[in-house]
């Protein structure tokens, strides 16, 4: 289980280096070949047993949402841009790590003593916020941080709940999509009937960019995208969809904003789950988007599907996932891949 290391590593879109190195170190002995392509994707080949000539791509993205330092003020405070989809309302007073040396900072915020009620009722736009690294001048700040440096939420991975009892959950940042990366790493312990291309992609959060070029290079017959997806179980008076639920098994996507899943692959996943008694859920259709959105429209088209570990509070400093869901996702995808050669092309 590599989730702790992956979660704590920095890897904002466009600067996935730390995560990439960790993954390369882990998978090196478990794949037959690997390379890092021109945009930074890891494309690893796990050779099949020779019984099927399919080429199958399984993708998980290494990047996470975060920040880029855009300007250093004379007084040493740092302006920043958001990288990927972040809600401005969650930013104030959060602690961050900046750059490869993980310089600690905090997104500054006026205390309640100094604000009026009407001010407190308004969300603050990120452009009005700055990151404070405890320096008092631009010259001092620039010894630690440069314009263009990336920043992430400063979150350590923790295990929740009573040790060894009940359902086990963990909390950390960047489960979208280090959870998918961790699932994909586990899948590489098995040999499949066909050549499996494990692709750890870059720049998903800013437009599925890594997956687009990787899929063109791999030219797969089928594709799976692995994700950490949103679960919204905050109670509401209305009987509406929570999108996904923790503890109810891997979430299968039938349609989101980026693609419509191939029906044969959805069927394969559901049949496999039902036959083996693996819990599963259908993710609320129509929301979000994943690497499958780019992969399925590559070249002449690639039938694709997305399977995800449900996570509460994604795109925030602290997401929560259930380890049973994680294990079931590994199991479901592994078993479905093994059966893949039996479905009609």
């Amino acid at each position, binding site marked *: 289980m590599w989730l702790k290391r992956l979660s704590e590593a920095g890897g904002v879109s466009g600067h996935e280096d730390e995560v990439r190195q960790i993954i390369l170190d882990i998978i090196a002995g478990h794949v037959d070949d690997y390379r890092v392509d021109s945009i930074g994707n890891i494309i690893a080949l796990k050779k099949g047993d020779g019984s099927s000539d399919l080429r199958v791509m399984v993708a998980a993205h290494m990047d996470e949402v975060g920040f880029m330092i855009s300007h250093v003020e004379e007084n040493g405070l740092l302006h920043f841009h958001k990288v990927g989809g972040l809600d401005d309302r969650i930013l104030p007073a959060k602690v961050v790590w900046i750059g490869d040396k993980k310089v600690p900072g905090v997104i500054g915020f006026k205390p309640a003593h100094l604000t009026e009620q009407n001010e407190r009722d308004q969300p603050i736009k990120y452009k009005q916020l700055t990151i404070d690294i405890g320096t008092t001048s631009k010259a001092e700040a620039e010894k630690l941080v440069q314009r263009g440096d990336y920043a992430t939420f400063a979150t350590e991975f923790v295990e929740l709940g009573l040790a060894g009892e009940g359902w086990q959950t963990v909390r950390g940042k960047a489960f979208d999509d280090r959870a998918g990366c961790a699932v994909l790493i586990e899948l590489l312990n098995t040999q499949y009937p066909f050549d499996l291309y494990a692709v750890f992609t870059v720049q998903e959060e800013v437009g599925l960019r890594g997956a687009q070029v990787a899929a063109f290079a791999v030219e797969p017959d089928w594709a799976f995208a692995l994700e950490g997806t949103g679960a919204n179980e905050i109670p509401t008076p209305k009987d509406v969809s929570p999108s996904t639920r923790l503890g109810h098994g891997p979430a299968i996507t*039938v349609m989101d904003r980026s693609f*419509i899943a191939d*029906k044969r692959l959805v069927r394969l996943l559901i049949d496999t789950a039902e036959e083996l008694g693996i819990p599963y859920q*259908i993710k609320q259709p129509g929301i979000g988007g994943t690497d499958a959105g780019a992969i399925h429209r590559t070249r*002449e088209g690639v*039938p694709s599907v997305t399977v995800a570990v449900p996570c509460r509070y994604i795109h925030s400093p602290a997401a929560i996932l259930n380890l049973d869901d994680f294990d079931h996702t590994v199991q479901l995808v592994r078993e479905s891949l093994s059966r893949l050669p039996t479905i009609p092309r």
Partner: protein
Amino acid sequence: MKETIKKLVETFGPSGYEQDIRDSIRQEIERHGLATEKGDEVRVDALGNLIVLKKGAGDGHKVMLAAHMDEIGVIVTHVDEKGFLRFGRIGGVYPHTLLGGRVRFADGTVGVIGVEKLEDRTKMPDLDKLFIDVGAKDKASCPVRVGDVASFVRPLADMGDRLVAKAMDDRIGCAVLLQVLRDLKETPHDVYFVFTVQEEVGLRGATTSSYGVAPDLALSVDVTGTGDTPEARTMAVSLGDGPAIKVKDGGMLAHPGVKNWLVKTAEGNGIPYQLEVLEGGTTDARAIQTSRAGVPAGCVSIPCRYVHTPSEMVDYGDVTHAVKLLVTALSKPIELM
């Protein structure tokens, strides 16, 4: 053509769920013995596009004609404890077209679209205030699951010159392609008739099929809006004034040479036409145009009132003239100027 049009518009086929409509179109092709000559091909690609090659006599271009098989629809996002369904849109579906309407799922289950109590009847509710009632007593007896899709229920009404149905967008384009395939007796060109999938959700089928076909030139046949109804948005296209040759829309500029070629063909053969400048919306030709190293592309559009409602109206004369325009244009060598 009316019999074919009726069959196509009444067939189920929201984006991503085009199997039934694809089968219908294939049956039409087989029933009329089309695409059976030497060199002709019929195939379905990985995303579900139906690609029919009518082999030319040689010396011509590789021409792609695209019409999309998919229609807008809804997808179930949640089944509540009482068996009511919440739903999301597949393609451009708007709440004001839905209230009191009916939908049908792939297995034939029919549902009625209802709405929560409205605090303000002068304001249109958002989609999340609507639900589908399939007559279930509770969640356990509900025959529909999260992820199931449905299309509108509305039979074709033949008003003589005008035809009204759901999914004229773009089954009328599919009907035009089928008729061109029947009427195009001799052509120097290899003509690929491509019935595309997933246009309504982002031109996805056209993206992959144009990569596969790699045409020299492409036309899509799709519906366009009109400006001829009371207090309509200004648009110089009217029902019954002939097929519309696209100049531009919200997503693309037609290749001027392609536009001129179609205009010249229409004028030289006494075929009525109008020029289309559409401010919002786009079609498959946009994706085809930027495929690989680029493809000169244009559109022959069928003027259509009430697009993306369950009752889309076209003029039958516009339809038959579109067929004539395409057959005439494709019967001869093409020179783009």
